[in-house]
């Protein structure tokens, strides 16, 4: 018996000792609490966020006295009224919302063929290339990428130089609304592809072959088979792109050149330029509300898609 025991490797005995220590400080009868213990860090983080949100809610109800730069002690709805009545904020809100909707639609249209090819191609080389091309921009970061577009699309940029070679006069390609939309679509594409790909992987290729043998050409196969089955992926990707675009800061700031601000830029201005934290907080809360309503609307209309965690499939 003794000889057999010494034959166990050292790592096994260390593990035994560690398990013994663990059993002493966390006895078996506590074991049912273990999953909750593991949940604790996430709960703490979200809890802090909620605390911050409460503080923002508190700030949003206090008005700034511009002569003393002090916040009022009393609560008032002045910020709320200002946010709704001042034309600037309405323009910004409308601009953000319209941009988010356009960007979502365009991104989904562009992302689908990319994801489809990536999932369905038989060539592992092409799949790797598509994946790398997708992730590479992630490593660069949003701000650097937006500056990159400034260089490429600027008055002396590559695009205008190329156009000059064929005799086209330089055009203003940046600091306008299409430039912001373009930058956002380019930024959102990887998110949408990554959300769509698993949904497409879940559609057996045999279903498309079956649709073909039953008389459907590729357009009808797409409409009647692929699209309905990919719906969870479209909803997931749509919600992610919609919320990320709606709340984006860097792309409108850099590619819009200050003249095509989104809600996040307006909030930034209130906090750090005019120092009216009350109004900034109110705008932030309204952005949260707008996003929540939009996502709720999508879920109510189309279901929760992949975000339902597979419980309400099809």
């Amino acid at each position: 018996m003794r000889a057999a025991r010494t034959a166990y490797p050292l790592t096994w005995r260390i593990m035994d000792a560690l398990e013994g220590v663990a059993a002493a400080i966390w006895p078996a009868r506590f074991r049912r609490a273990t999953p909750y213990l593991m949940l604790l860090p996430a709960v703490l983080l979200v809890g802090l966020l909620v605390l911050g949100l409460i503080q923002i809610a508190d700030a949003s109800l206090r008005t700034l006295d511009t002569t003393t730069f002090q916040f009022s002690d009393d609560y008032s709805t002045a910020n709320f009224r200002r946010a709704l009545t001042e034309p600037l904020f309405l323009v910004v809100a409308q601009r953000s919302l319209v941009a988010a909707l356009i960007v979502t639609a365009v991104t989904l249209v562009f992302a689908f063929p990319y994801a489809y090819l990536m999932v369905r191609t038989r060539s592992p080389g092409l799949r790797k290339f598509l994946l790398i091309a997708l992730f590479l921009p992630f490593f660069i970061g949003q701000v650097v990428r937006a500056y990159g577009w400034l260089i490429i699309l600027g008055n002396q940029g590559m695009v205008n130089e190329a156009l000059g070679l064929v005799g086209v006069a330089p055009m203003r390609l940046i600091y306008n609304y299409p430039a912001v939309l373009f930058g956002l679509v380019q930024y959102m594409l990887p998110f949408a592809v990554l959300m769509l790909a698993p949904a497409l992987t879940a559609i057996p290729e045999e279903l498309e072959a079956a649709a073909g043998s039953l008389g459907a050409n590729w357009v009808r196969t797409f409409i009647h088979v692929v699209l309905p089955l990919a719906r969870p992926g479209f909803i997931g990707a749509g919600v992610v792109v919609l919320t990320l675009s709606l709340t984006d800061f860097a792309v409108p700031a850099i590619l819009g050149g200050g003249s095509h601000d989104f809600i996040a830029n307006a909030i930034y201005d209130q906090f750090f330029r005019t120092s009216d934290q009350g109004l900034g907080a109110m705008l932030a809360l309204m952005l949260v509300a707008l996003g929540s309503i939009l996502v709720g609307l999508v879920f109510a209309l189309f279901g929760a898609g992949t975000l339902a965690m597979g419980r309400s499939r099809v």
Partner: protein
Amino acid sequence: MQEPFRAAASHEAKGGGEIAVTVRNVGMDFDGVQAVKNASFDLPKGRFLTILGPSGSGKTTLLRMIAGFQTPSSGEIFINGEAVSAVPPHKRSIGMVFQRLALFPHMTAAENVAFPLKMRRRDARTIPDRVERYLALVRLGGYGGRRIHELSGGQQQRVAIARALVFEPDLLLLDEPLAALDRKLREEMQLEFRRIQRELGVTTINVTHDQREALVVSDDIVVMDQGEIQQKARPIHTYRQPRNAFVANFIGVTNFIAGTVRAVSEAGDVSILRGDLMLAGKIGDPVNPPAEGDKASGAIRAEQIRLAGDAAQLSKLDCMLAGTVTDTIFEGERMVYEVACAAIGDEVIRVFDHDPAAHTQFDIGESVFLGWNARDMLVFR
């Protein structure tokens, strides 16, 4: 009153021999690997053909080329006399039942069956009636409203069959759809396929690795191995007159005794010598007959060998071997004996017990005699 199925006409064609499918010198290369080599056969209208072979034999590739999912590297496929290599699947009149059925999970059973009719732009008013008629044909009347995941495995099979047949295709293809079922259900569905095929008279090509299924359901069997067609024959001929050692070995349980050819007669009698043992048999493949001095194998089926405790009981048989029982395997309806025979270097011969009613039972280690008739031993090169 529902219109009758168009069975009668096709049944007449069964005897008439009008050709539905011609496969001519078809080959398929995958990156230099020949999955199918120079395959040719004709399939008359209304017949049920099974392509039988082990996995990797090229049988599924051949089926996918007929369906139009793959284009032959060489040769041509004709359906109703027309070359179809340039015709995409959705323009061929082919119903296919897929290995994993490929039913649409977001549709009900009835919507699945209606799908090919809608895609082919059939008169919308006739669709519900026709769908219900085909669901009744596969004995699923009243199940049309069910979602696919609410149906059992067997019911899903039936929906897939109805969907493949509802648009009255010229050809029905079955890509091993029964492979995943348990044995009882599989045997039930085999008979169901045969019943429906006979009722509608639709020309059918079935692919399987299950020799029993091939024998039970088919009018003809094409045996494939390593991309090549080994034999095309009716099931009973495939079993009783295999054309080569592969077919003899793949279907049924066959013993091979290797030796050297000593004599070949005009009438097709062959004798082979193994050590001191002379074995009489028949030429297995008349196209490629063995000649004197060739290495050859005598093939004898396990059920064609008699087993007895003393030699006198086997005196009416042409050949006899003495051996020792090395194993007994009880398979329910029969007993399988493995017998090592000294005359052929203690090679093991497998024998099915023919007479379970006699309740004779040999034990491991017992000395026994094996006997068979010369006409049952086929000699292959």
